[in-house]
């Protein structure tokens, strides 16, 4: 009685693929929104930090706003504006994800510079990578890694204190930092692949459940129809 025809199986696979794509897209749109909020939160944090740590630069008796405060306000806004706009107008797009991730790594660069290359601030990079993994899209981790490595390479050559806090690092120091990022990447790429596989598995199960439900409803309808057809003869038989 059970319908196991090829047509039904193809329909299930198509439905599963549709469900899978919907779930992945929803996840990525939601991650875009999360990053938009994070961008604004980091901007506010940078301004508050600048106000608390170094609001003014002094020259004798006179004071003026510290350049770090301007950097927090204007560079922070600059770093945040494009990803926030993209997350609003083009959510879920591949380009949006890559711009957001590049921007997040630029936030790390700004914080590292503003704190004088403090090694503790480098943890922002690793925290950000964990956030990036929310996308379940391993190529964006590669974008993040390239931005971090380039930032460390260029600033390490031009102005090493701003990124390492020391004046004379080895030229290859950026590879050491990038290596630790790659180390985390391995785990996160694996996590992304597992996450996608699990989402696919869930989508297939949901498609199966939907398909079974449809079949059960069809069977119930057919049974009811047969019962309705049989009902008059059953009544007659009972009267006789």
């Amino acid at each position, binding site marked *: 009685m059970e319908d196991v025809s090829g047509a039904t199986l193809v329909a299930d696979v198509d439905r599963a693929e549709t469900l899978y794509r919907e779930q992945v897209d929803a996840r990525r749109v939601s991650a875009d929104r999360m990053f938009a909020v994070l961008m604004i939160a980091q901007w506010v944090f940078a301004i508050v930090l600048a106000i608390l740590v170094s609001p003014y630069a002094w020259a004798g008796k006179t004071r003026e706003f510290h*350049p770090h405060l301007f950097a927090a306000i204007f560079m922070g806004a600059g770093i945040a504006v*494009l990803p926030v706009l993209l997350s609003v107008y083009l959510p879920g797009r591949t380009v949006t994800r890559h711009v957001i991730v590049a921007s997040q790594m630029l936030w790390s660069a700004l914080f590292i510079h503003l704190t004088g290359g403090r090694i503790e601030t480098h943890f922002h990079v690793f925290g950000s990578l964990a956030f990036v993994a929310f996308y379940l899209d391993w190529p964006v981790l590669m974008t993040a890694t390239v931005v971090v490595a380039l930032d460390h390479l260029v600033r390490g050559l031009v102005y090493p204190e701003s990124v390492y806090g020391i004046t004379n690092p080895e030229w290859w120091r950026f590879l050491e930092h990038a290596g630790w990022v790659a180390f985390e990447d391995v785990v996160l790429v694996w996590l992304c692949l597992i996450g996608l596989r699990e989402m696919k598995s869930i989508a297939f199960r949901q498609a199966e459940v939907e398909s079974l439900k449809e079949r059960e409803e069809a069977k119930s309808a057919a049974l009811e129809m047969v019962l309705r057809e049989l009902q008059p003869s059953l009544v007659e038989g009972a009267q006789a």
Partner: protein
Amino acid sequence: MTTSQRGMLVVAAVVWIAAIGCGFTFLMKYSVEPGTPASAPEVWPRESQVPAPRGHYLLVMTLHPQCPCSRASVAELNNLMALLRNDNVKGEVLVVKPAEFPDEWTRTESVKSAERIPGMDVRLDVDGVESGRLGAATSGQVLLYSPDGRLLFAGGITPDRGHLGDSPGRQRILSLVKTGTADAKDSLVFGCSLGAKICPPRPKPAGL
């Protein structure tokens, strides 16, 4: 996405990258821009109220109490004094204060940190009179005088503005005290202007 939308996105991305690049360049320039170098007297000025070096090295730092960049200078001074603990070095920090400002204006973290450095005397320098005598114009300026009162070194001890870490200034002071020689007698100094009146005006020393 249409072709025109794609084009707009590319333009926006290029402008975005250029603007951020300009921002970082500005920040880097600010960080490596040195303050006015000292024109320190070659021998300890007799008129100074700070006790002259007599049989010991004297390391003097001028400090603007509100200068955020000078927190790093004070932290480096702490490191330097620790490295010179057994080398007959006394330290003085001159905290510059305009006469019309209250003393509370000087009670900043930089000054408190300086007071915690072993072997360091911290004194108020009202209107920067002492700093002026020593030719110091920038917060974080360090001067090293020999036990017989001769100027050995004048410069900063941070690698750049507000950043901790090893620096040419630190290396030269260590070398001068421990070996009597160094590759140079000055270094760039990074910090806020003291606003002190340099008295008497002296020619600027040769740069690095």
